[in-house]
């Protein structure tokens, strides 16, 4: 499959969304709401449940399955409240020493007037900042779209995994082509150059694991094992490893 096809497929309406993975991976899920500052962002689902025998906090971005749901979920584009809700629940997980599973599927943070006025940039920045020293293990799973800063705000984790047909990119290929050549026609060329597929990102050492379609049935066990093995680290080691993981990106 061409890289641009991967992007287009990840945007399709009939693909599995965050809530499907939630159902398949997590049992006894209890959802929590609100950022405690302004409102509850329905694009972000967060709460607690079990993965196997491990009690975890799960936070993810949900796009919705049909038109009505997609409108309700704002097509999986979070406002600042969504990122602040996510951070609140991450802090809660830290307090109760629960590991965190983050599930990412977003075209990007919502570009709107109200989102800007309530500090979209600050909300994302603050997540990166706080997550860098959050004293509990985190695993981020990119299931479809990993759209720029809006996805990164839920991906500053100890491990970043991607489904084999997901993408993670600094910019959408269309916007990139538009900026470079004032036309979206060559989006397919740009998609290749941006190195946004799981395979290419793994080669660049930017992600830790690719989940192939055949292995998706074992996803739950793989996540449980990974979280349990991360929990064996001392907090100091965990944080040092997390710092180094991002420190070496583009190191000269």
């Amino acid at each position, binding site marked *: 499959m061409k890289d641009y096809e991967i992007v287009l497929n990840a945007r399709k309406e009939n693909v599995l969304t965050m809530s499907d993975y939630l159902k398949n991976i997590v049992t006894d899920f209890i959802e929590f709401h609100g950022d405690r500052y302004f409102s509850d962002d329905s694009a972000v689902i967060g709460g607690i449940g079990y993965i196997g025998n491990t009690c975890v906090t799960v936070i993810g971005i949900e796009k919705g399955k049909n038109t009505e749901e997609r409108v309700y979920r704002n097509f999986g584009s979070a406002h600042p409240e969504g990122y602040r809700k996510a951070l609140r629940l991450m802090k809660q997980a830290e307090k109760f020493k629960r590991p965190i599973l983050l599930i990412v599927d977003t075209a990007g*943070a919502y*570009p*709107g*007037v109200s*989102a*800007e*006025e*309530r*500090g*979209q*940039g*600050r909300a*994302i*920045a*603050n997540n*990166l*900042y*706080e997550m*860098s*020293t959050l004293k509990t293990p985190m695993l981020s799973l990119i299931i479809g779209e990993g759209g*720029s*800063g809006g996805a*990164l*705000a839920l*991906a*500053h984790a100890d491990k970043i995994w991607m489904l084999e047909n997901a993408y*993670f*990119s*600094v*910019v959408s290929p269309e*916007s*990139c082509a538009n*900026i*470079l050549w004032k036309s979206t026609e060559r989006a397919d*060329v740009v998609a290749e*150059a*941006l*190195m*946004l597929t799981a395979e290419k*990102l793994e080669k*660049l050492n*930017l992600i830790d694991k690719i989940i192939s379609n055949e292995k998706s049935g074992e996803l739950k066990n793989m996540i449980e094992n990974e979280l349990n093995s991360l929990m064996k680290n001392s907090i100091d080691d965990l944080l040092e490893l*997390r*710092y180094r993981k*991002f*420190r070496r*990106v*583009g*190191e*000269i």
Partner: protein
Amino acid sequence: MKFKKFFIKTCNELEGEKNTTRKIACKKCGKKISVSKIRKNYFVCPNCGNYYLVRARRRILMLADKRSFIEHDRELTSKNILSFPEYDEKLEKAKIKSRENEGVICGTCLIGGVKVCIFSMDPYFMMGSMGSVVGEKITRLFEYATKNSLPVLGITVSGGARMQEGMLSLMQMSKVSAAVKRHSDKNNLYINLLTNPTTGGVNASFAMLGDITLSEPHARVGFAGPRVIEKTLNKSLPKGFQRAESVLKCGFIDMIVERKNQKELISKLLIMHS
């Protein structure tokens, strides 16, 4: 091509012009003012108050005590790691236009006698976009500041992450933010000075993480580009949207400081924290 040459020329007009009595027309009000007058007025039009872009090195000269700046990592320069189309040419042009190796200058200096780590982004180097080298230089500066218990002053001007380096650019946001956190956790001061524009991935990381956030008047400060928002909403944006004055009202900036007052204020803040 002719247009591009012309553009480079006008950008350098204020900086490079040797004949300081030469008059140039202000891009905003159109009034012809001599180069020396604009330079003396901190690169602000004395007639209409329009703020000109200031190159990174000039910024440091404007703020640092005389001859106190010691540069770090000057030699670092970007490579086209992803073999991205036209990136090599863009880098070459940016180097000529900005006369710098990269989009940020880092180092230490004294401001009002207080030692501070300073980074200054360059609007003439691909609009201060953040690639691996920009992220690396700023991260190294924060690590140096943490190790030596020094405050950091960051002057931002950026369109965001540099798309020609793909995810390597995006993840610089994580890298720098983590270094800022370590610096902060050791009780060190970080002052941001936002200038026009501070947007995208730079806005969504270290530009919004200062203990004290200052901004130049009328600077664009925001995450998403205004054209993107207009396209999404299909309506025009409110007046003053994403401008420093309205961002301050929304609660994301501590104060707006005119260029001529910046050095005095920053030196006061540094003394109060030393």
